[in-house]
């Protein structure tokens, strides 16, 4: 509303020139299992409720309790939501990492810390705010056992006072966080107030960072990518869900269970219009998906890298026997256990060709929570239309972090079930051949088990078969089939989501990126324009196989930087296979693989360096 907007402008106009308003990042360093998640979410939400664009990244260890964890909240009036490397405001709660945390931050930054840690001895170029957490928590939390959890809420109050977060919004966020647990909300609110009051009395403002109300988040939602994908699956009409717990994908199916219990129980019979099974391992999870897909269900599983590897054999069967299924891969750092709680785009190449023999699989690359939702829906339609396993390649950063987004749009198109012949169709046709390419798109017609017609039954197998689905080891039957499957992949090229392209005027340099790299890239594009006068085109891939538009993009640019969050330039390698020979040498790589979400500065620096080398 206009009034709010004016107020925000006035607030900005009144502050000193050196003050930094609505453009900062707060890092909270705590110990895993200390209940800091609640405090961090409340702080993030309060800033969001003040209309300031915000993003949160949880950097956590593979551990239940005791190891260090960091949470970064970035507030950005420009709306940048990528990770920012620089920390402006540190909340140092973990004695183990406090010294290092303090040493790493830029001069002029502020540090809120537990006074016992004596951090002010470490540097002279920072603003220090010591807080006696133990003294403050005791009176507001008489139960000593709960103090460890409530303690963190004190820093919310301190930070709120120092930065200008409205306490009313902290209160509202707390209510939302605790919903029906009124007692817990009350306890935490008292702790937040204690922090605020302490800061008011004892901590005069000495740093230059401020948060003031804006109007840039109205109507927006906050959700993590896994929950968004779960919602997409539910609105896609998923009926069979099988999964095996693995970080960072578990919350996808766990959230889905909650939503399905609420929205997918038949109102008349009170029975479920779905089946969700926690399988014994990923091999069984994908096997159940294929069994269900074969029998006509919309079936899915979600996993991460190690699970993808285990599914390899079955996925090859799915490709060759032509069975629909949707697999969400919430990528993490590998190989092996790697860094199981850190983000990566490391499964791109292995998933593209997952399994033995000649196999290729469509992959969708959501960049946002909106796309986790819409691509989940698209994936189910594609899987059934193409009769093949389809992968949705999310990652830990997208899946497990909270993102600000516009509310999701209800699907406009009806559910597309693909080429399935009913009893009535068979009565009309008399017969059918499962793997005959009737329409020239490489996709045959199928029947579902249980179709009451003598011609409906056919035998599905991973071994050689002809167009009639009959066992065959004849050389030409095998090649005919494989060629048709290749044709089907060409069809996929036209059906998968097209890339999103922003063309620069010069058409000299381009960037290709996908998934969560997007947020760092859009910010880097601004940095490159503002700081280096480089105007760069951007092609955001949304799917594999690549659409012709991607080839055209590379054709009309001189140099194209491909951003990969992996060591081996996996997407770049896939692109090389698909480009005209003269275009292959145009491709260069920007690689990021330290387990942290990509930041804009890294992209900008890499491009500037490579452009200078040229």
């Amino acid at each position, binding site marked *: 509303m206009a009034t709010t907007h004016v107020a925000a402008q006035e607030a900005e106009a009144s502050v000193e020139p050196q003050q930094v308003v609505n453009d900062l990042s707060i890092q909270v360093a705590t110990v895993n299992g200390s209940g800091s998640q609640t405090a961090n979410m409340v702080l993030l939400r309060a800033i969001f409720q003040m209309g300031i664009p915000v993003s949160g990244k949880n950097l956590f260890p593979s551990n239940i309790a005791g190891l260090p964890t960091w949470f970064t909240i970035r507030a950005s009036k420009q709306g940048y939501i990528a990770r920012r490397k620089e920390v402006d405001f540190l909340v140092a709660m973990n004695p183990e990492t406090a010294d290092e945390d303090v040493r790493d931050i830029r001069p002029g930054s502020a540090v809120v810390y537990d006074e016992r840690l004596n951090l002010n001895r470490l540097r002279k170029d920072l603003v220090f705010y010591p807080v006696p957490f133990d003294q403050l928590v005791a009176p507001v939390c008489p139960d000593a056992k709960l103090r460890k959890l409530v303690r963190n809420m004190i820093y919310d109050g301190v930070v709120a006072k120092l930065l200008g977060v409205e306490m009313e919004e902290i209160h509202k966020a707390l209510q939302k966080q605790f919903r029906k647990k009124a007692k817990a909300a009350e306890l935490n609110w008292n702790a937040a107030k204690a922090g605020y009051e302490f800061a008011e009395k004892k901590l005069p403002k000495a740093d230059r960072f401020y948060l003031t109300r804006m109007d840039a988040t109205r109507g927006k939602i906050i959700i993590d990518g896994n929950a968004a994908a779960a919602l997409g699956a539910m609105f896609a009409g998923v009926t069979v869900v099988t999964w095996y717990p693995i970080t960072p994908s578990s919350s996808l199916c766990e959230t889905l269970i909650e939503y399905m219990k609420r929205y997918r129980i038949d109102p008349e019979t009170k029975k479920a219009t779905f089946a969700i099974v926690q399988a014994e391992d990923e091999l069984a999870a994908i096997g159940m998906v294929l069994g269900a897909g074969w029998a*006509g269900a919309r079936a899915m599983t979600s996993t991460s890298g190690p699970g993808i590897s285990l599914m390899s054999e079955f996925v090859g069967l799915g490709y060759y026997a032509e069975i629909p299924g949707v697999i969400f891969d919430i990528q993490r750092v590998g190989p092996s256990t790697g860094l199981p709680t850190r983000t990566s785009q490391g499964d791109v190449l292995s998933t593209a060709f997952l399994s033995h023999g000649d196999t290729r699989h469509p992959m969708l690359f959501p960049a946002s929570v909106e796309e986790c939702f819409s691509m989940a829906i698209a994936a189910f339609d594609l899987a059934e239309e193409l009769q093949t396993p389809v992968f949705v390649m999310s990652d830990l950063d997208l899946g497990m972090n909270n993102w600000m987004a516009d509310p999701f749009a209800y699907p406009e198109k009806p559910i597309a079930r693909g080429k399935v012949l009913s009893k009535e169709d068979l009565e009309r046709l008399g017969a059918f051949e499962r793997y005959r390419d009737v329409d020239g798109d490489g996709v045959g017609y199928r029947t579902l088990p249980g179709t009451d*017609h003598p011609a409906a039954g056919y035998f599905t197998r991973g071994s050689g078969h002809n167009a009639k689905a009959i066992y065959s080891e004849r050389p030409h039957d095998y090649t005919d089939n494989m060629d048709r499957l290749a044709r089907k992949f060409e069809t996929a090229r036209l059906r998968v989501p097209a890339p999103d392209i922003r063309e620069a005027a010069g058409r000299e340099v381009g960037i290709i990126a996908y998934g969560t790299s997007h947020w760092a890239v859009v910010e880097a594009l601004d940095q490159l324009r503002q700081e280096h006068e480089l105007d760069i085109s951007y092609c955001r891939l949304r799917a594999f196989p690549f659409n012709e538009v991607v080839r055209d993009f590379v054709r009309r640019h001189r140099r194209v930087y491909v951003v990969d969050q992996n060591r081996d330039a996996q997407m770049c390698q896939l692109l090389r296979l698909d480009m005209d020979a003269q275009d292959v040498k145009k491709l260069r790589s920007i690689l990021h693989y330290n387990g942290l979400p990509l930041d804009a500065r890294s992209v900008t620096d890499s491009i500037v360096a490579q452009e200078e080398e040229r």
Partner: protein
Amino acid sequence: MASTATSPAPPRKVNRIGLEIHAYKGNRSTLCAGCGHNAISERIIEAFYELGIEPYRVAKLSGIGCSSKSPAYFLGTSCGFNAVHGRMPSIATGTMLANRTLLALGVSGDGDTASIGIGQFVHLMRRNLPVIYIIEDNGVYGLTKGQFSATADIGSKLKTGVVNDLPPIDTCALAIQLGATYVARSFSGDKRQLLALLEGAIAHHGTSMLDVISPCVTFNDHEGSTKSYSYVKDHDEPLADISFVPFFQDITVDYAPGTATEITLHDGSRVILKKLGEDYDPTNKVEALRVLTQAHDKGEVVTGLFYVDTKRESFLDLLNVVDEPLATLPESRVRPPKTALDEIMEDLK
């Protein structure tokens, strides 16, 4: 009457739904002549014919191996899925989740079940999914030319002279312990018993596990093998004489009260066990495991219905899945309305 009238053709023999036995046959077997698996296929054909099951309702599922090839040789108009090695249980589970009105018939082997597939096997048994799980058990890997499987008995000898020195996995004992609700062992050469057990399995609602000793004529039918025809014939100790009475027939089988146990299955069919020697109660888990353990110690192969539980809920009931196939529910029942999405979005603001 016109003198030109010819004598009427003999009436075709059909089952209660008007189908000839031919409708239950499949392709010609490509397994070795005399393979026990072929005899099992014949019994499957008979069982489905006799019970008058519509072939379109049956989903045939298998893993990899000689046994797993056999679904091509029966119920030729039913849908079939020959999956990957040891993973038929997950395919069967997915299939039944998608369409609970199907009748899932899984065929596996001893290698496919007890070695590579043991993980999926045990979890299938735990779930009590409605599925018939047949192990065509010859104690040997036939398709890769005669290596031992995990059901081979200690001391059993391969053609090459190699002696097995590891104890066998008893799939029946395992299935009972894990929660399967219809567990039996039979012998491919015992037509009457195998047919009755199969018919009982078809009528049962839950996991039916049938371990059928099925000698491999090529790699495991020599002297020294404990899964040869002659060994099994000599050492077979039938637990009871089994009769199966389908739900659509009156009970006319004569049995003397006190010497027989009758089990009523879900559809009203009955399995009748006539006692041979000692009393045997197939609803007693402990007794079943005792009989199996004792037989192992004696080097005997006990056959028959070891265990039945008609009360345990099936996996699909536990999941509270709607009665219709999930696979074909209309969009109106699987895509919540826009108001639902609006409500969720409002909550996330």
